């Protein structure tokens, strides 16, 4: 048997729990009100262009991204702008948002809402990039990096490969999996568009081996296209990290502190490719996404197509309501996600899943001392030493943390997962990264 590709350094094998893998994508009814945060992307927040009392249509621009790294935000329902104010987001902090009271579902006229698949790509390279920017497409893998920025290859660099990330290595999550199985045709058109926008010839799609139906389906469709290869990968967390995926597929290593373009690659998530298809072919902005709602005790784990801004509560109600012994609801995957402080928090562009954990699994084990076993070092896919980074962060030695490459951490949580003493290594490192990032920024000014 041929050995499957994967990345070499570090990595872990958590239990998969892909409970919702066989649940087809269902459309969640439009909520009564949506809270749409205006800073839904990595980079600068966008500027609100509507005011209280305005009537908006579905797909209308409500916040404009003005900085280089920022993205437009659109109304996900039609109705009346109830307020432009701060709302509690998934982190528990207040962030500026536009609240819309839904009235019917009236779309902007230029959006094609038919289900017909439009394969022919008429847009030119520049038009593609502009369209992606206009429609507010961001990376849907979780980091929400504005997609149009990725398509602008910096001078002096050339893109050789477009890599499509269908790995979905986080346990529990199945939204990308369902998208690949159900929307394969559209996805492939989206990939063709990205290919044209980027001006590359070769496309690699990486999918972990635990999704054989997706691999089979996409391989069949890919056969109709030129230069699109589907690769099955050995299951290992965090293969969905772009640096790990490049290493697994091409054996190339992205240098410390650099972007994948350094080794001639641009990585996009399957969800992003689908959103690009909708934006360019159907003129539809990024106003909905597929979210996995799952949990071992949940009555009906599902994959739901949800309008951006829908409260998390609506999704859980659709999945059978919150079980009585719930201890924690996590926004995102179990490895990298954050616990929610309120179920009123809205779904944003970067939300890939909502996971409900029962009480007995919710609490962290009691904190013990580091025994220097080195498991975290072995697990780190970036070759870092999490135990020391955590210590440096705890002692606020930011310069030394920077020297030890704390900024290379991809926050996958493998170190915390393996720690036999239950040390919250990633918590320490995250705070360290925030401070070191601030320090670097201040130095630049």
């Amino acid at each position, binding site marked *: 048997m041929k050995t499957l590709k994967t990345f070499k350094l570090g990595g872990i094998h958590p239990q998969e729990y892909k409970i919702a893998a066989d649940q087809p994508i269902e459309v969640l009814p439009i909520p009564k009100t949506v809270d749409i945060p205006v800073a839904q992307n990595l980079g600068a927040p966008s500027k609100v262009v509507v005011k209280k009392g305005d009537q908006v249509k579905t797909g209308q621009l409500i916040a404009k991204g003005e900085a280089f790294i920022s993205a437009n935000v659109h109304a996900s329902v039609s109705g009346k702008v109830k307020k432009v104010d701060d709302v509690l987001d998934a*982190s528990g902090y207040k962030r500026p948002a536009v609240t819309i009271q839904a009235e019917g579902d009236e779309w902007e006229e230029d959006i094609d809402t038919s289900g017909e698949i439009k394969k022919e790509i008429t847009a030119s390279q520049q038009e593609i990039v502009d369209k992606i920017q206009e429609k507010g497409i961001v990376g849907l893998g979780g980091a929400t990096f504005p997609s149009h920025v990725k398509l602008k290859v910096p001078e002096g660099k050339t893109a050789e490969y477009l890599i499509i990330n269908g790995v979905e290595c986080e346990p529990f999550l199945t939204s990308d999996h369902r998208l690949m199985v159900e929307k394969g045709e559209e996805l492939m058109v989206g990939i063709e568009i990205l290919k044209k926008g980027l001006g590359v010839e070769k496309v690699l799609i990486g999918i972990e081996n635990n999704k054989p139906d997706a691999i089979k389906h996409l391989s069949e469709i890919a056969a109709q296209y030129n230069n699109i290869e589907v690769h099955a990968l050995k299951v290992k967390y965090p293969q969905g990290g772009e640096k790990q995926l490049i290493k697994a597929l091409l054996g190339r290593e992205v240098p410390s502190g650099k972007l994948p373009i350094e080794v001639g690659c641009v990585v996009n998530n399957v969800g992003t490719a689908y959103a690009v298809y909708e934006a360019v072919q159907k003129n539809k902005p990024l106003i909905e996404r597929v979210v996995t709602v799952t949990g071992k005790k949940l009555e009906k784990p599902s994959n739901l197509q949800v309008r951006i801004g829908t409260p998390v509560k609506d999704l859980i109600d659709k999945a059978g309501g919150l079980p009585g012994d719930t201890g924690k609801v996590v926004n995102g995957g179990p490895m990298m996600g954050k616990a929610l*402080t309120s179920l009123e928090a809205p779904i944003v562009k970067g939300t890939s899943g909502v996971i409900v954990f029962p009480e007995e699994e919710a609490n962290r084990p009691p904190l013990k001392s580091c025994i220097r076993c080195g498991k975290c070092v072995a697990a780190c896919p970036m070759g870092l030493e999490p135990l020391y980074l955590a210590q440096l962060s705890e002692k606020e030695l930011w310069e030394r943390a920077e020297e030890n490459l704390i900024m290379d951490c991809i926050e996958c949580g493998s170190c915390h997962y393996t720690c036999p003493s239950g040390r919250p290594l990633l918590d320490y490192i995250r705070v360290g990264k925030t401070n070191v990032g601030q320090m670097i920024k201040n130095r630049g000014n």
Partner: protein
Amino acid sequence: MDEVVIYAVVSMAGLGTAAAVILYFIAQKFKVIEDPRIDEVEEALPAANCGACGLAGCRAFAEAIVKNESLEDMNCPVGGNEVMEEVAGIMGLEAEQKDPLVAVVRCNGSKTNAPQKVIYDGPNTCQFAHALSAGESGCPNGCLGCGDCEESCDFDAIHMNPKTDLPEVVEENCTACNACVEACPRDIIELRPQGKKGKRTYISCVNTEKGGPAKKHCSVACIGCGKCVTACPFDAITMENNLAYIDPHKCKNCRLCVPICPTNAILEDNHPEMSEKIVEKAKENLKKQTEKKKKAAKEKDNEG
């Protein structure tokens, strides 16, 4: 045999003399003349080496004073006016009289006032709790209760009260060294003038949210209603970001703002118990000030 002894003694004595001469000249050449006042000033300082003056310890503070020959912007909050006068005496300068300060905790979000809604189970320090969560009561500005301030205090002057999960300042021990102010990631602790007989009035809240959400998190939050701003006869209270602030230099401790606060967010230290008389007076004062300020605003409008 004797010769050996004599040679040894003579050669050692010679070597010793030669070394002494060399050392003498070297000592002369590299002599450091230090102002004797540095030692004197250092002697006068409390030797806490806490860094509250902004310099690295008492020696550095003394050196800086002597070097600059000035007491401008130099203050030892631990020693207070007494020590600064002594230092001024040594230097032959005039010491500036400063109001003695004390640390004040501006949050009253105890377990009962701001009940816990979520559990934070990350690293148990305020710095991390602040960076990773909004706080267990949901208040984005309130005390996190992990005790970074207690940890930072060198003078045993601030302690966490396990009943309320809030820090409490031991006034006699507090030297106003600023360590707890810097340790608090949410800027809850403020150094305020001690006041006559320790009497102080302050807003015990730093929440900048609007009234509704603030009240939801905590029953004693400042809701930004502005009643105290209107009531204050000395214009000592200002409102910014839905949060009132009492300027300690303008406040005359008349206590007329305390009973009218709808959420009891104004606290007073070391005052006698609030009497019915003051409550009545405060209500009347509010009416009077409201009318007065309305009138003033109208006049201003007319002029404009």
